[in-house]
């Protein structure tokens, strides 16, 4: 029996070398990046993202320092690609247009301009400038579970009006259920111009990375973010080799070489993991409590330093509605909890 998606075309966008940086505490070497990117290019993956996990401007005490600068990573990868387009992440308030220009000079040609799912109006300068530079430009609505479908559609419409060619629903917390994804993508499809593309970026914290991506495609998305063996924040992204296999079985055309992706995941990416990227107790807590996936390793470090369990810290961060970029509030929250538990004294 043919699947409902038979004959559809989907563009896969690899996140191993950007979201995957989070899982490696930003410590992927240039050589390793080139090795992985070359394998992805060889497997016909059309887009791959390369930057610090927090994107342009990400090198900071707040987000950690990578082994090389963004332009160094981008140039090293872009100069070796036969077909794949190199993309970057830009979060206004952290990254700037100056850094976007440097990324372009280094060879990046696609960009996810990311804002929190209710704050699209912080992105007009950056989206317009990305288009001016000739970038394939995406508006990326993070922590999408914190807005309803109607709100997401309004925010997506704003980004489209600034010049975004694709709008993404970004499940940064890995919290959304299939029906949430279906509703969000459908609503966006209703309000956006027919030529505007739709995308979905999932996290696997509830084990739904693949099925949510399929739900997004069924509702009208044609761009999907995924990564080798799921290398990414929290329990990782949607694993690209698994998604490619499922899409192949469903008759969806992606153009990628499934076996080459399986080999790259198994032979290169899994051996380099510092911890197996999976829905362990804390990563599952992210998906269950609606917390930004990148907080995972920060919370584990704060737990060690202040003696408060990581799960308790994560649940509290969810209750306080902390969003992407508020990594400082992890230490702050851990310290406040440690004081309340008599584990830490105030200085004043």
């Amino acid at each position, binding site marked *: 029996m043919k699947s409902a998606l038979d004959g559809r075309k989907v563009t896969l966008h690899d996140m191993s070398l950007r979201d995957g940086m989070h899982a490696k505490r930003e410590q992927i070497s240039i050589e390793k990046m080139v090795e992985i990117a070359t394998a992805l290019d060889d497997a016909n993956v059309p887009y791959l993202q390369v930057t610090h996990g927090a994107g342009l401007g990400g090198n*900071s005490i*707040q987000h950690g320092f990578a082994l090389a600068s963004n332009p160094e990573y981008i140039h090293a990868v872009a100069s070796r690609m036969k077909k794949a387009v190199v993309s970057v992440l830009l979060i206004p308030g952290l990254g700037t247009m*100056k850094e976007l220009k440097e990324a372009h000079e280094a060879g990046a040609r696609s960009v996810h301009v990311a804002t929190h799912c209710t*704050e699209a109006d912080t992105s007009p300068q950056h989206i317009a400038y990305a288009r001016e530079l000739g970038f394939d430009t995406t508006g990326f609505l993070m922590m999408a579970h914190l807005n309803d479908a109607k709100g997401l559609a309004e925010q997506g419409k704003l980004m489209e009006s600034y010049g975004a060619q694709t709008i993404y629903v970004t499940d940064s917390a890995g919290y959304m259920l299939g029906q949430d994804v279906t509703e969000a993508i459908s609503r966006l499809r209703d309000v956006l111009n027919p030529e505007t593309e739709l995308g979905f970026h999932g996290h696997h914290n509830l084990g739904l990375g693949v099925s949510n991506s399929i739900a997004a495609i069924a509702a009208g998305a044609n761009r999907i973010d995924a990564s080798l063996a799921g290398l990414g924040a929290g329990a990782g992204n949607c694993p690209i080799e698994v998604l490619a296999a499922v899409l192949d079985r469903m008759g969806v055309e992606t153009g990628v070489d499934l076996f080459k992706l399986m080999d790259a995941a198994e032979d290169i990416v899994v051996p380099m993991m510092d911890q197996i990227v999976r829905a362990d107790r804390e990563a599952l807590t992210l998906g269950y409590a609606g917390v930004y996936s990148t907080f995972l390793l920060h919370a584990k470090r704060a737990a060690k330093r202040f003696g408060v369990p990581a799960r308790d810290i994560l649940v509290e961060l969810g209750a*306080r509605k902390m969003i992407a970029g508020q990594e*400082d509030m992890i230490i*702050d929250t851990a310290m406040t909890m440690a004081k309340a538990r008599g584990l830490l004294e105030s*200085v004043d």
Partner: protein
Amino acid sequence: MTKIKCALIGSGNIGTDLIYKLQRSPVLEPVWMVGIDPESEGLRRAADMGLKTTSEGVDGLLPHVKADGVQMAFDATSAYVHAENSRKLNELGVMMIDLTPAAIGPLCVPPVNLSSYAEGGVTNLNMISCAGQATIPIVNAVSRVQPVDYAEIVASLSSKSVGPGTRANLDEFTYTTSSAIEKIGGAKRGKALAIINPAEPPMIMRNTIYCQTAEAPDEAAIIASVLEMIGEVQKYVPGYRLVNGPTFDGTTVAVFMEVAGLGDYLPKYAGNLDIMTAAATRTAEMIAEKMIAGTFKLEAPEVLA
């Protein structure tokens, strides 16, 4: 007692909040509110509070400057129009306090460098940004103890307190604040990050300040210096509060602050807006005291041939 008469340019949230703060001041008196929309709520409110108003921009104010004895102006419009506003009013001998990110005059953070302008010699002082006012005192408190190689600040603002101007120009906010962390904070390199959080009820403004010291940090001296500086800021922003820290991790010092506003016109969670109006008022009061004493000399305006 004599008060220095002030004009407020920009009838939005900041301008309106300034009316409240200036009306409480022993040395300042708000007399004019300048807007561009005759229907605006801000102009109506200013008129209700006893100010003269014009909806014709700064040009509507200029003919009245001499007659009404205006000696000081606060600009809460935008970086794009500030330079012209400042030039026109400086020509008439009016001291300009700039609350836009234009930064054409020297940068001012009251507890750090206001006293250096006590003798005059300036016609325009810039208040940097809300994040700058909230974080640079702490950077300076560390850098006055020992050299700081790098300082990074994270300002978290409630979505409701961030106006359309800031949203459309986040890069300017980043550049202006980063540069001031170096120039006024005293760090060799500075970086500013801004987060806009839509949680309801709105979160109170939070600021995290990280400083990397060149040598091992003198923990006791840094803690004492930071606490003293917080006391200085609390003199004009009572809701400036240490939440956690200073905490030390290698050479990195982290300080976690909260800024609650006074709740004059703006809600208390909007500490980011309040710290701007409070710092501007503090700056203006110091200058007004010197003007009244006759010891503050405005730099002579350049005569254009």
